[in-house]
């Protein structure tokens, strides 16, 4: 690059910069309008009692923190956070376990394993609503092969999604089914970069397979597991179609996660101001986790 600059002089360099600016500007302008402006609007709305029933209150700022104060006292909201954490942590942990196990099993060069890897990808790319439909069928005793098999052996089980004790775990299983391929893919990609030499040296020294995994392979894949976990954790806050189709937040409110509670406040009750405050809390959580991802070196493109 430096030789080029020397040849063509500063005028050329300025023209080049201008050209890049014109390439970048439309995207920045569009992103400004469709992300930053809505985010600001959301922030402003969260300071008002905006709702459909009380149109006059739309732009009242006399008590800007009323929604946030209300959030702290709203037991349904606090419970939704606990539900969210239970669902997110259980499904992410399961995804990491299943994804890692399958990646280790499928890490090989044969054609068969390659084909298997492709088919295992399918749950992740399916439309979430189809995943929800698949599990609605699995959990509906009338049409579910599992329920009928259990009935045939004399162990009829109540539908897992109708039972308050199991509904959340049923969703967690469906969510795991959809997202384990993500961890599997990431771990497979990393496994290909584990060098052979230390493995060979260690096995010559008499290390058994477990030790090889624990002390040589695992340190290589640990960072990617952490990143996967954080990534999936962030995405798990958005889980919506599964809950909408499988339980609708019920039975009662046992599967009502924060995202879903916000949705109900906004689009069932039309409490826009209050729902905006909920969304702001979620945004804050997501930003914190994203920042953590950045700190853990996920963002390697810029360092290169």
């Amino acid at each position, binding site marked *: 690059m430096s030789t080029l600059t020397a040849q063509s002089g500063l005028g050329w360099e300025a023209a080049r910069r201008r050209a890049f*600016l014109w390439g970048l500007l439309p*995207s920045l302008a569009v992103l400004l309008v469709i992300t930053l402006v809505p985010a600001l609007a959301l922030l402003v709305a969260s300071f008002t009692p905006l709702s459909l029933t009380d149109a006059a209150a739309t732009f009242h700022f006399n008590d800007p923190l009323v929604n946030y104060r209300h959030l702290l006292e709203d037991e349904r909201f606090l419970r939704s956070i606990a539900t969210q954490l239970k669902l997110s942590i259980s499904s992410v942990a399961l995804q990491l376990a299943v994804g890692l196990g399958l990646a280790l099993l499928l890490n090989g060069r044969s054609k068969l394993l390659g084909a298997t890897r492709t088919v295992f990808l*399918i749950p992740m790319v399916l439309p979430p609503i*189809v995943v929800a439909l698949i599990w609605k069928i699995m959990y509906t005793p009338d049409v579910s092969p599992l329920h009928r098999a259990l009935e045939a052996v004399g162990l009829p089980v109540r539908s897992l999604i109708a039972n308050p004790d199991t509904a959340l775990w049923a969703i967690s299983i469906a969510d795991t089914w959809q997202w384990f391929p993500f961890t599997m893919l990431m771990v497979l*990609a990393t496994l290909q970069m584990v060098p*052979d030499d230390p493995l060979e040296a260690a096995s010559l020294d008499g290390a058994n397979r477990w030790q090889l995994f624990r002390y040589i392979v695992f340190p290589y894949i640990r960072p990617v*597991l952490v990143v996967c976990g954080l990534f999936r954790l962030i995405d798990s806050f*958005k889980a919506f179609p599964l809950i909408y189709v499988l339980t609708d937040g019920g039975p009662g409110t046992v599967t009502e996660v924060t995202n879903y509670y916000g949705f109900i406040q906004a689009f069932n009750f039309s409490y826009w101001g209050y729902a905006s405050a909920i969304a702001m809390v979620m945004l804050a959580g997501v930003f914190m986790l994203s920042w953590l991802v950045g700190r853990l070196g996920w963002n390697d*493109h810029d360092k290169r």
Partner: protein
Amino acid sequence: MTSADATLTLPASLTAAALPLPATRRAGWLRRQARGLVAIALLLVVMFPFLWLVQLAFKPGAEIFEDSLLFVPTLEGFRSLLQGNFLKSFWNSLAVSTLSTGLSLLIGVPAAYALTRWQFRGRRHVALWILVTRMAPPIAFTIPFFLAYRWLGLQDTIAGLAIVYLTFNLAIVIWLMQTFFEAVPTALEEAAYIDGCVVWQAFWRITLPLASPGLAATAVLCFIFSWNDFFYALILTRTNAITAPVAIVNFLQYEGWEWTKIAASGTLVMFPVVIFTVLVRTYLVRGLTAGGVKD
């Protein structure tokens, strides 16, 4: 970290058998076949719910509550979909996804190129902002968009929905295309500059054709993400611009439990996605894991 630790509780036999050890490699044929067999057995177990949906779509309505897989496949479910409004929602999905993919490529690809080749101060912040927009929960965008669209008259329109999809598609295009542009050596562009090309000519004639497989994969990913969306479509459409995923949910809620028809609609909606996945697998993998692993 707790979740990472949880993975350690895997049975040692499973993890150990899978290591790419020299010993395993030498042991050869039998061992590899055993692993393949385990893989296929697991595949059948994991994909069973998916396969059940597909077979349900072809099952005659009268036999829907029976377990037997020995039935004469019928297209009844698909036929009843053709008669209803489902086809319209399918076209809407197609139109919205195509429009949004086209728009995001048009705006996003030059931006990705500029971000790759132009090292300016604040570049890191711009890139991070673009990434964070992808992370934000959709509900944060839906509330302002819902209120604004009512006012702008964009509610329940294909254009309105396509614009909302830019909130995630643009980030995907910019982020992903950067990795593909990075792979194109700058020397080629410099040669073009010396021949008198300006920046965007060199980009159009040299860089973009070299990055075209990546471009295709990015387009497919954008299409899939738009096609798969449910949340935005549920809230921002009513009847006119309703998309296929929302139509499926309407079947579930309003048309009772016609399982054959519902399963057929699910099968139709996932069909394009599964085909795309198998066709562009390698690039898709790169796109889905973008940035997660250094390549």
